[in-house]
């Protein structure tokens, strides 16, 4: 302890004043002869213990007050070593990089505060202790986060306010980007000394790509460690897949649990939730620093479609990674009607043979019904998710009207042409739903190099033939095809039907073109439904497309597209911070995304171009959602043109934590950006002066209060007596 005015400590002699006054009072006491001394002494014995204790207490309190006053005037203080770096007190341009990655959401101890609270407090302390004329900026370390104070500011209060407003994200850390950003900000710094302070728990995750400060010649980097060794258990993976052994609606959910501790985790409890309800509970043993998988089997009672699965383990200090979610896709049993316009007795020559085979293949989950045009009951169309019309000559007026109503009410129709098609009848009866009027049949002329060797698996066909132009994968139908897919590119088209030119129209797009530029597959949105028009056959009469590898996925994706079902390649699970593209229906005007914490975000798609027939203009309408900041389930609703709002369960998606944030492994010393300076001993931490007179003043106040209470109590006791 030190004193600013030690000479005033002479006043400590006043501490004996109460005792001295007491002695003087004794000497001045008047003697009194009293006969009943025996009674008096008995009375004294009865009260002496209590009285002496009270007197001693009073004497102690008064002595304390008398001694404390000169101590206060002497201004005592002590020096404590600061937990801030030595550079903090110098004038400088500084950037505080605050680690707000998910791992800082863990609690310091059971019932304690998150580590982030400590980190933010440390950052506050740093900013408060920077030299007043220093300028400072604030950058967050989580991936893809904007800097709260993006330019050096001498207004420290503003930086402190920004710090108070920062909350810990669930994203992973990206120190390389944060340090780049900090260096960039410091180029505008007003002072020669430039320092980046990184307040972090020094978790190894997130430091990839960071080089030592000496290697880059950039600003000095000072690490302020707020972490402490911790252990963690986490669900790091979750997969859901159909489980045929459990029936058509059976699913298998496989959770992968990691144990990031030195002790094995035995009988670690796991809970499986489906659509929010607990459906199973299990246990798993996970070795130290190892992983284990737990497989749950369950039969969904709610029928086909997408379901939300979640697995949660018993909680530890870091609860954010104790659960993980996934979307479970169960076969919808999509019903498809194939109207065979050219039936044959030889099955392989039948118009619908390849079409039906493609839909049945690969467990696509389609329920297929085949019928001749005359057998189709117009009223039964609504039972199907999609209707394929294969080389139908001329639909009856009743069937045509039923098809128009079917499409306008949300149905999907696939039309393929052939020799039997009466273009005029189609154009007159189904003009309302045809993407383009049918034209003349065209036979391909010889093109390209006829001597060129056929591609592998290609059937040698000497007829002149067209091929498809390179695919434009922006249409959702083609999203699953590789950019240089031979599956479609190798197909040869000897004959096809031309389409009559029409003005560009919203909702209509050419999905596939021939090399000559003629449309091969045209899509249009009519009412709430969709129509696909293939300008060739689906048997081998005009083309060998049905025997090409691309035919099967093209047919299945077309069926799903027409029925409005999610694509087989739909990505329904994201990591925090990843972008999600949400498809819109033809009548959708806006999309609402509701996050796990109930926060709602409305997204409006870009307006359609008024003209132009480019594939981009008619590509699938979608909006991008990038506010995937919290792990959990995100619900999607669409606002339609007629004002109604519909839930879009097929567009739901889940967001999970980056597994890297679960790993408590600390950053090795040789990977620290400041390791060279740290190895040299670093800067000694400064000392700060801690004034003690405030505390002493509080003690005096308490002592005076106690003395008053004791005296008052004494007087009251006497009055009662």
């Amino acid at each position, binding site marked *: 302890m030190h004193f600013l005015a030690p000479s005033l400590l002479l006043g400590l002699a006043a501490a004996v004043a109460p005792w001295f006054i007491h002695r003087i009072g004794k000497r001045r*006491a008047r003697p009194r002869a009293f*006969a009943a001394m025996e009674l008096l002494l008995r009375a*004294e014995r009865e009260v002496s213990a209590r009285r002496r204790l009270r007197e001693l207490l009073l004497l102690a309190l008064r002595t304390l007050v008398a001694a404390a006053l000169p101590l206060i005037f002497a201004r005592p203080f002590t020096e404590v070593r600061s937990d801030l770096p030595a550079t903090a007190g110098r004038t400088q341009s500084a950037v505080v990089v605050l680690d707000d990655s998910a791992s800082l959401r863990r609690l310091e101890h059971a019932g304690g505060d998150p580590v982030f609270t400590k980190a933010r407090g440390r950052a506050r302390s740093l900013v408060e202790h920077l030299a007043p004329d220093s300028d400072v900026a604030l950058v967050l370390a989580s991936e893809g986060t904007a800097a709260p104070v993006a330019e050096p500011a001498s207004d420290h209060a503003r930086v402190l306010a920004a710090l108070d407003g920062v909350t810990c994200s669930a994203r992973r850390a990206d120190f390389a980007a944060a340090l780049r950003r900090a260096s960039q900000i410091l180029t505008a710094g007003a002072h020669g000394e430039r320092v980046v302070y990184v307040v972090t728990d020094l978790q190894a995750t997130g430091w990839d790509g960071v080089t030592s400060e000496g290697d880059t010649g950039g600003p000095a980097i000072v690490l302020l460690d707020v972490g402490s060794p911790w252990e963690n258990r986490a669900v790091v993976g979750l997969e859901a897949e159909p489980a045929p052994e459990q029936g058509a609606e059976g699913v298998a959910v496989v959770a992968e649990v990691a144990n990031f501790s030195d002790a094995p985790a035995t009988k670690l409890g796991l809970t499986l939730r489906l659509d929010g309800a607990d459906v199973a509970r299990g246990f798993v043993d996970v070795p130290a620093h190892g992983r284990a998988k737990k497989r749950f089997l369950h039969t969904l009672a709610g029928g086909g479609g997408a379901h939300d699965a979640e697995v949660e383990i018993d909680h530890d200090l870091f609860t954010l990674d104790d659960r993980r979610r996934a979307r479970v896709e169960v076969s919808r049993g999509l019903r498809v009607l194939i109207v065979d316009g050219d039936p044959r007795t030889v099955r392989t020559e039948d118009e619908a043979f390849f079409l039906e085979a493609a839909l049945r293949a690969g467990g696509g989950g389609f329920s297929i019904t085949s019928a001749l045009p005359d057998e189709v009951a117009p009223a039964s169309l609504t039972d199907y998710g999609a209707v394929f019309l294969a080389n139908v000559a001329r639909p009856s007026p009743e069937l045509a009207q039923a098809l128009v109503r079917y499409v306008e009410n949300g149905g999907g129709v696939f039309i393929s042409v052939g020799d039997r098609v009466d273009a005029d009848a189609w154009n007159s009866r189904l003009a309302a739903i045809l993407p383009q009027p049918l034209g003349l049949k065209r036979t391909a002329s010889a093109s390209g190099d006829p001597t060129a060797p056929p591609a592998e698996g290609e059937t040698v066909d000497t007829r002149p033939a067209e091929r498809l132009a390179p695919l434009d994968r922006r249409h959702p139908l083609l999203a699953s095809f590789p950019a240089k897919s031979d599956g479609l590119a190798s197909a040869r088209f000897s004959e096809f039907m031309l389409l009559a030119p029409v003005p560009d129209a919203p909702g209509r797009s050419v999905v596939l073109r021939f090399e000559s530029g003629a449309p091969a597959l045209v899509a249009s949105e009519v009412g709430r439904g969709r129509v696909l028009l293939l300008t060739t056959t689906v048997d081998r009469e005009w083309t060998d497309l049905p025997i090409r590898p691309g035919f099967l996925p093209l047919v299945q994706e077309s069926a799903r597209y027409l029925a409005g079902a999610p694509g087989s390649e739909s990505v329904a699970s994201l990591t925090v911070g990843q972008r999600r593209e949400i498809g819109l229906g033809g009548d959708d005007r806006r999309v609402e995304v509701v996050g796990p914490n109930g926060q709602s975000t409305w997204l409006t798609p870009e307006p359609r171009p008024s003209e132009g027939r480019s594939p981009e203009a008619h590509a699938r309408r979608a909006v991008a959602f990038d506010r995937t900041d919290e792990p959990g389930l995100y619900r999607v609703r669409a606002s339609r043109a007629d004002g109604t709002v519909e839930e879009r369960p097929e567009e739901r998606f889940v967001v999970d934590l980056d597994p890297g944030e679960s790993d408590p492994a600390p950053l090795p010393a040789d990977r620290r950006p400041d390791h060279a300076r740290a190895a040299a001993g670093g800067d000694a931490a400064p000392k700060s002066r801690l004034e003690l007179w405030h505390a002493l003043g509080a003690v005096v106040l308490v002592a005076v209060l106690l003395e008053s209470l004791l005296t008052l109590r004494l007087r009251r006791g006497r009055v009662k007596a």
Partner: protein
Amino acid sequence: MSDATSTVSESRAGVLLDPHDLARLATMSLRARVIVEGAFAGMHHNPHTGTSIEFAEHKEYAPGDDLRHMDWKAVARVERYYIKRFEDETEMRTFLLVDASASMGYRGSNEKSVSKLAYASYLAAALGYLLAQQGDPAGLLAFDERTRQYLPPRTRGGHLHELLVALDGLYAAGRTQPGRALAHVGELADRRSVIVLFTDLLDAPDAGGDELANRLRQLRARGHDVTLFHLLDPDEVELPLDDLEDLTEFEGVEPDDGRRLLVDPRDLAASFARESLALRERWRKRCLEARVEYRFATTSTPPSEVLRAFLFNRERERGRRS
């Protein structure tokens, strides 16, 4: 003298003089007379016309007593054997025992107060005067640790004067041994007597207290009529806080008493009052057990009132026996 005359007149008219006023009277004889007249004024008796303190009583039967004197009515009433003692048979000798130890000299802070010894002298003088009026012999034994002065009970002329002069000349000194004084009286009283003890009981510690209680019991068993006047100054009932400093050093009054106590009297007031009450209750209980009449008085009480209560009680007891 004129003051004293007027006071006597008032006393006859029924006004009780307080001890301070009595002290202003010139002689002990006058004080005794005033006290007696004051006491009888309240009882509507004339002390000069035959009313007397008669000490007739029953005695519980003991082997050797004459069965002719058995009170069979009492036997039938209380189922215990009592022997009648006839008033005309009893030549009642009275021993007045006055504690003249140093503690009895204590006089309270009130300027109107008198010492306990003076107060005891007034009461003893009044009783002596009354007995002389009745022709009963009264003696005096003043004591501290030993018998300091003894006047045997007599009825001859001039004896009352000697007794009153002796009382007037008493001074407080020395420690006290009331048990020893009672033992001395026990030797002197060869037949049934009335023994009246005036003391403050302050210097009779527990052991001494037990001795005193035993002596009282013995005297009572021998047929003596014993009364204990327990006299205290008001200061010894409750501490006079108004007259005491915040810090007071109390010291004993007995010779060679080294006891001192430096204390704030307010700290002790309640406890002291409890101790004083406990002392009185203890002696009341002891006397009850020994069948000794216990009478407590503070020196601020008019002696006539104390005497009147004493006489009234005796008259009532006599009425009950008869």
